[in-house]
């Protein structure tokens, strides 16, 4: 509240780039900023530069539908995302910035018994990890989302049940970015927007420096936090990634009075729907199947996402779509992240976030900061090593992440 009447800069005005930093973080999205924040907070590492080619949050962080949840399928995934969710719960207070975390619950609908099976399995794995997640049936779904059509006899995709995850919800994407940026800045890191990394210099299996649109910068450690662009940055360091880049799209309606508190996801219909604190219905769908780096959306998306949303919320038929947009997603083969060391000693990566990486920002920041500061891979992220694709030891979240963020 005290900041309400005071106009204080959120972060320092970006100055000149120094010649050298202990840590250079490529990418000013949620992961890069979180890492800088935790580097300072947990490890006192402050000689850090975040290089962002555009404005902070211009990537997926600023385009995502902000669903936070931890009801994943694999024990590795469930543990990891749960740790992140717990950090998120406290993050607003810690950053002294209201992240508008609307923790009103998350429902993944099942329209077939096959889907019910997957939900049951997730519920059980979650329960064993202390994650609040359970199967619910139409009557309870109706109570949780009274505006939704749960037992329409003519429904194309009747709802058999759902996985209910009370701690899930949505958060304000930009607030997370700005809160973390301010936290990083106050911790001592330099945030450099409009600074594009164009090359990486290596010698003796180590990264020496990065070249940028504003000159060359030496780096003790380089962290690749560029999500949708991570293949390109890794290429510069001579590290291959098992990634394909696709667009994912979203759209919002004009603001409406509250109708929906929980997040609704239907994998079979490829939609997910929430209503933001501003009143807009926020909708997303699945990725486009083809790879691309061009952040332009498709008409097909708008058609499919509205048709399917109206299956569930027919009363929205005259509500108007205000805007749609697209962002990039770095898809990994097993729908789990790629996090940590690479074959290049001082070049670490955070990638493979597909459609679900925003919820991981705090835990990525924390673990990547720990790895950077100590040189040791935290146990929580050991299963997500890049090496697993060479060894073919996948952590498959196909059933829990493919279309469901």
């Amino acid at each position, binding site marked *: *509240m005290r900041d*309400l*009447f005071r106009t204080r800069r*959120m972060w320092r*005005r970006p100055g000149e780039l120094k010649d050298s930093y202990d840590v250079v973080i490529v990418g000013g999205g949620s992961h890069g900023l979180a890492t800088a924040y935790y580097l300072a907070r947990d490890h006192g590492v402050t000689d850090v530069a975040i290089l962002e080619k*555009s*404005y902070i949050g211009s990537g997926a962080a600023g385009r995502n539908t902000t669903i936070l949840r931890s009801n994943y399928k694999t024990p590795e995934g469930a543990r990891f995302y749960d740790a992140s969710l717990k950090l998120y*719960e406290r993050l*607003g*207070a810690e950053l002294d*910035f*209201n992240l*508008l975390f*609307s*923790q*009103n619950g998350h429902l993944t609908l099942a*329209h077939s*018994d096959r889907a*019910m*099976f997957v939900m049951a*399995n*997730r*519920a*059980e794995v979650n*329960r*064993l990890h202390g994650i609040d997640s359970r199967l619910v049936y139409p009557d309870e779904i109706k109570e949780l989302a009274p*505006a939704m059509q749960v037992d329409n006899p003519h429904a*194309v*995709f009747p709802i058999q049940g759902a996985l209910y995850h009370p701690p899930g919800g949505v958060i304000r994407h*930009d*607030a997370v970015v700005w809160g973390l940026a301010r936290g990083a800045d106050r911790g001592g890191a330099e945030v450099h927007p*409009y600074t594009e990394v164009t090359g990486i210099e290596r010698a003796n299996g180590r990264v020496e420096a990065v070249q940028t649109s504003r000159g060359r910068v030496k780096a003790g450690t380089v962290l690749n936090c560029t999500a949708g662009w991570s293949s390109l940055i890794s290429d510069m360091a001579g590290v291959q990634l098992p990634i394909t880049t696709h667009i994912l799209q979203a759209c919002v309606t004009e*603001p*409406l*009075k*509250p*109708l929906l508190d929980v997040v609704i996801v239907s994998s079979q219909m490829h939609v997910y729907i929430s209503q933001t*604190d*501003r009143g807009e219905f926020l909708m997303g769908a699945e990725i486009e199947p083809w790879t691309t780096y061009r952040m*332009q*959306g*498709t*008409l097909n998306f*708008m058609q499919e996402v*509205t*048709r399917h*949303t109206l299956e569930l919320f*027919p*009363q*929205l*038929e*005259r*509500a*108007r*779509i*205000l*805007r*749609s947009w697209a962002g990039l997603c770095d898809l990994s083969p097993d729908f789990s992240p790629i996090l940590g060391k690479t074959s290049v000693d001082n070049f670490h990566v955070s990638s493979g976030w597909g459609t679900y990486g925003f919820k991981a920002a705090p835990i990525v920041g924390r673990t990547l900061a720990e790895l950077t500061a100590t040189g040791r891979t935290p146990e929580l992220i050991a299963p997500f090593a890049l090496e697993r694709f060479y060894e073919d030891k996948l952590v*498959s979240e*196909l059933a829990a992440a493919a279309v469901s963020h």
Partner: protein
Amino acid sequence: MSRLPEREGERIDRSRTLSFSFDGNEVSAYEGDTIGSALFAAGQRTFSRSFKYHRRRGLMCCAGQCPNCLVQVDDAPGVRACTEPVREGMKVVHMNASPSLELDLMSATDVVGGPFTPPGFYYKTFIRPRRLWPLYEKVLRSAAGLGRLRKSQPEREWRTEYRRRHADVLVVGGGAAGLSAAAAAAELGADVVLADEGPEPGGRLLAEGGRERARELTERARLAGVELLENAPALGAFDGLVPVWQGDTLHQVRAARIVYATGAIEQPLLFPGNDLPGVMLSGGALRLVELYAVKPGTRAVVAAVCDRGLDAALALLDAGVEIACVADLRPGGASGPAKLLLRRNVALMRGATVLEARGRGGLQGVVLGRPDAADGEGERAIGCDLLVVSGGSAPATSLLSQSGARTGYDTERGQFALTHVPSGAFAAGEVAGAGELASAELSGAVAGAEAAHALGFGDELSHTRAEEGRRTLARDHGRPAQAAVPPPVTSRRKGKCFACLCEDVTAKDIHLSVKEGYDSIELSKRYTTTTMGPCQGRMCQLPAVRLMAQETGTTLAEVGTTTARPPWHAVPMGVLAGRPFEPAKRSSIHGRHRELGANVLWAGDWRRAYDYGDPRGEALAVHEAAGLIDVSTLGKLIVRGPDAGELLDRLYPNRFSNLKVGRVRYGVIASDAGRITDDGTICRLDDDSFYVTTTSSGAGAIYEWFTWWLADWGLDVHITDVTQGLSAVNLAGPRAREIISTLTPLDCSAEGFTYLDGKRAEVAGVPCLILRIGFVGEVGYEIHCASAHGEHLWDALLDAGAGHGLRPFGLEPQRLLRLQKMHILIGQDTDSESNPFGAAMPWIVKLDKEQDFIGRWALERYAEEPPETSLVGFRMANGHVPTEGAVVMPVDGSPMGQVTSARHSPQLGGVIGMAWVPAALAKDGQRVTISDEGKKLQAEVVTTPFYDPDGEVLRS
């Protein structure tokens, strides 16, 4: 009240009155009125309350561009009253005010809210204590939002549809430029569509003194064969695909060439009180007058930066509005309309503009003066009920930008103008900077002709003309601008000065946000939410950029603009959604299942009979007599050619080239990562031909998988997908043989037709392929015939079996029956990570095969490394049926696997299932713990089929 006497060319029909209600009060209107014009004529001045401060807002643009007149009509929120035609009996209500538009309690925020609700105030408040946040959030949420929808609605009620329209040329925008372009292209023979969002083509001509011309041009275009879409905003540009919304229809226009003649958007000015009802854009005031014969005010002041506002003053004068004063920001030089104004004794202030607008509940007066003058100097306060502003224009480049055009700041004209138009697109008229009517028409004609030329239409003459036209336009373009560029804010007086009307963002808010560090246009946009409301920047982008440039001490070019995204015009979801149909596949016997009372569910993209109401009884019939199940959903491929065996040997880990003609073999398909992707049976029909079945949901993918490798390998093989061409039923049970024998001449004896034989014969007079396989564990005949005969075959079998206890059975009993046999279901018992070794099918992988096959390398490794988990059967210690999906744990604890199938089997008198368990436990008699909804249950591992483990029944 404000209706003018009949005017030439007005859009209303005074002989036909309509009535509708606004907030419960009856309002009368003429046919042709918009909600806005009718309400205004009836004296309504406040149309909405603003988003945050609940300030009164009145008509401003009268063209559907600004947020001021958003109302709710029946159940439709966000309706632009100023463009929505009145329909008899419609119920119109205001949106964001309570209890009423006139008395809005939330407007207290306007008085006290300023300092408490700066941009992003919610980021800085309610942070602690955390536990109170949910409460605050509820309050915030209920204060936000405009439209109110029904709590519940069972089904869609509004019929909307798509219409694909291919065309040679699409013209977006039907002003002088667009109409000329469309006519020019069509006259050269092109197939042309023109979409205009106005009520009739004409654009600015309609209300700005060119209606005759508009109607001439329209007629010319119509005669040339142009398809004219009116009331039809083009929503976006998707690489040549342009969706156009018109009423209930979404036209998806795919044109070879597109001419954008979208005009420009008249801009407001920034001064305290610039949002008061009574402040109108000149275009808006004139549209009221010219289209609807409504007088926008009695006494008006005009503030302009170019002739457009002066022209408007003249027109208003003609309509009987008193013009108290005209402030022209341009310092000197009397333009044509200025002279006319002077001649008519209208006071004209040069170099002046509005410094402030005042009024309670609506405009009562303005202060005019020089923006740069010291306080008070040379100011004039004037009473008026209408302030007409014309703050310059912003070319409507959104769609062009989406199609790859670029803009740059044109300092002289004070706008972001096109600097590059991509090939395939053309820009004409005001959007392209063609400022005057003549050049707008010319630039349209040239663009239209060039678009047609690019497609091979036209002749030498038309080319010459177009080139000539280009040269003329280039000359015109070089002339100096006729407009003054207003300062970011026209005065430093107190009072809210709105940069963004949609989101109630003031100039001061932008100033504060920059000071806080949100110093790029993108950050400022997101922090203040300027341009993020219903107008999407039409009214606020340019003012915001100007303010940003001022605050950051940079140029407008450096500040730049934000990205234009679809839809150009907020569009109802129903329109985008089109018809609600979803493709669903149905077997040719589906109708019979319905008649038999089947419960039908989705299975992949098929609708299937889950059971016929008695799954237990149905399963029992299979054991005791016979059952009949429709398995037409199986994928079915014919693979033939000299290399067919070779192809299959390469695609499956086991061998098919040595399969004997007339025999059937089971196969599993693996990926090169060694993961199971599908399974099915294969029957060799003759030396060169195989009949391959796949899982129901895998059919499409496997067909593509086969043809993909075939495309790569180039073997001499033909593949045909006959999935939908064949019905298949499985007749199984101890009496199946008797039943089938009554319908076929074939020798069905145990010796004559043995297990895993595939034979062709007539059944019930229909040529069939019959496979003796036993998915459900009893003697079974899978009978395939042309799907046109499916129903006939089904009926004949049921008839023949009537005296033998034959019953139809559905998917659910089949699942139990196959579970008793431990036959796996791909996708249920396996997942994307399962390999054949883990799935307890090592025998299916023939690593001794000579040739390479897909999956070989990975499978070689799996053959050596013991799997971590294995698929086994289990029997429950007690009678509890675990949930499918329940977790398996070794005795010590952490989850290692899951239950994939579980059923109570009356036949076996217990609960059986399949599960992935730690490999060490994959032995008969091992005990595993199953965690099901937190309960820990005990089960015992079984590795051989529960029913008929040696397959004696099957083979009998």
